[in-house]
């Protein structure tokens, strides 16, 4: 296990910083899902988080994404201590700083692909500017789905839907993309394509990626592999 020295990373480059993060689900028997998780992720890096199902990797991703709060410990995103932010500030942080890609695309079925991609911008920016529309077009092209951008999200294939969801995660130029089994529902060819796109975006926009997967082959494509087991980081491998 390669322990990293936190002090050697300049704070401006730490886009995600976890300090002694614990998550305990209260119940008849308390379940500790995460135990003293501590690591930092630098800006512009491509990281994967692996672990068996039930190891706590999705919970950890949700805590980093501020969708869930830790029982104890600190989560610092882009220099902001999330414990000090209220619900609205967290919502704004998610909108501006984080893009989510889930196993399921969660596109709004009432809207077209283009409208879905623009929603994160609509939330705070109102009507999209020309620049934003151009950015959306660019993303559709990059994803290779510009032919279906005006289709209702229900009138697309699974791969197209997932790519639309990725474009949506990128429209606000977030610092971080958090992806939870993003290719879990796709065939191997689509899977490879999606990872190629992720890599390209990582290079083009210096977007930081943290991808949860149980597929070791995919994880090995990343610059750094974190492995979680029983709520603890058991491996931190940089390449």
């Amino acid at each position, binding site marked *: 296990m390669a322990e990293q020295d936190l002090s050697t990373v300049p704070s401006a480059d730490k886009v995600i910083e976890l300090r002694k993060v614990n998550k305990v689900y209260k119940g008849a028997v308390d379940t500790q899902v995460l135990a003293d998780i501590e690591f930092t992720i630098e800006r512009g890096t491509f990281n994967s988080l692996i672990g068996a199902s039930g190891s706590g990797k999705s919970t950890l991703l949700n805590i980093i994404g501020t969708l869930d709060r830790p029982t104890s410990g600190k989560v610092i995103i882009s220099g902001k201590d999330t414990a000090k932010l209220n619900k609205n500030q967290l919502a704004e942080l998610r909108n501006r700083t984080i893009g989510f890609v889930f196993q399921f695309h*969660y596109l709004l079925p009432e*809207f077209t692909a283009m409208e879905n991609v623009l929603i994160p911008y609509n*939330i705070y920016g109102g009507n999209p500017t020309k620049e934003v529309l151009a950015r959306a077009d660019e993303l559709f092209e990059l994803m290779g789905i510009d032919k279906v951008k005006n289709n209702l999200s229900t009138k697309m294939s699974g791969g197209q839907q997932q790519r639309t969801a990725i474009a949506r995660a990128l429209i606000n130029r977030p610092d971080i993309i958090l992806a939870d089994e993003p290719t879990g529902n796709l065939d191997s060819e689509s899977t490879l394509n999606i990872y190629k796109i992720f890599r390209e975006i990582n290079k083009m926009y210096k977007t930081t990626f943290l991808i949860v997967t149980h597929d070791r082959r995919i994880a090995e494509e990343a610059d750094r592999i974190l492995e979680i087991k029983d709520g603890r980081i058991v491996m931190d491998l940089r390449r």
Partner: protein
Amino acid sequence: MLAPRLAVRFLSSSKGQTTLIAIGIAIAISVQVFVGTLIISLQSGLLNDTIGRSPHITITSADENITIGNWGNLVTTVKGVGGVTAVSVSVDSNAFAIKENRSEPVLIRGLDINNNDKIYRINSAIYQGVRPGKGQVLIGKDLQILLGSKTGDVLTVATAKGTRNNLTISGFYDLSVSNINMAWLITDLDTARSVFGYGDIITSIELRVKDPYTADSVAKKVTAALNDPHLKVVNWKDQNKALLSGLQAQSASSGLIQGFILVSVIITIASILAITVLQKSKQIGILKAMGIKDRDASLIFLFQGSLLGLIGSVLGIVLGVGLLVSFITFAKGSPLKLSIDYIFLFESWVIAMVSSTFAGLLPARRSAGLSPIEVIRNG
């Protein structure tokens, strides 16, 4: 604004469901408009029948001597009281109408009908003959039938003092109230005075007010303005307590019916929107993950509530007015006169809008409380 856009899209994406809800609301509102108008018309009809052709406030002498002198000044004073729309004086006294061997008790009413007809509107009630001049009299429909009179007939009236006068029948009136049609002999002020041997006096001052329901408070103001213990001021509300409480009970029951209809509208909208929140929980969850604030997430459902209310209430008012118009057209012979009250329609619309927006509150709170993590965890 994203919330209204989402609301519109959510509603338009399930057109069948939206149409059904809107029709449901529309039917309820149309019934509310119909019942409300029916009761308002019934009330105003009843009120019109009761006090449509009578004074709202009557000033008489409180003394044994029933006459009022110096009445010119009093009329001027009363005309200056706020809310008073018409003032008229009369000389009234009891007598007997004698024709051949019949003798009927009557009330001779000397009215200023040539100058002031705003209270009894006698002119429009004359169905045969003309207004009475000096030495002439109008008699009611029922008395005409009883006596078998024609215009130009001479009627002898005997007073309590024993004097007898012959008056010529100038015409006949119908004030739609059998007792009045039977008892009143209507003439001008001077004829009445000469029958009873009075000088320049009157026996009562009669008033109409702008809003009949304020007759009691206007009567108080009149009493204060006159400030004379020898005068007695009574208003129709005191004289018609049973009718008034009947009208009030009718208003209350009408309010109750309309209230229940609104409650059913609110429950319909609230329960359907609550189901919509469940249907759309995935969408709301992902919107929250993307950074929509709880407030905006709840606004979606408030907008949906008010949109449904808008569509439903406009449809409902159109439907309700349609029902009323067809009722008016097909029930022409009915004694009930329906009139469409636009202020009432506007009020109904505003209340329906407010209620449906209010109905969106509960689902809106649910939406605000929805946690994205629940949605994402449960897929």
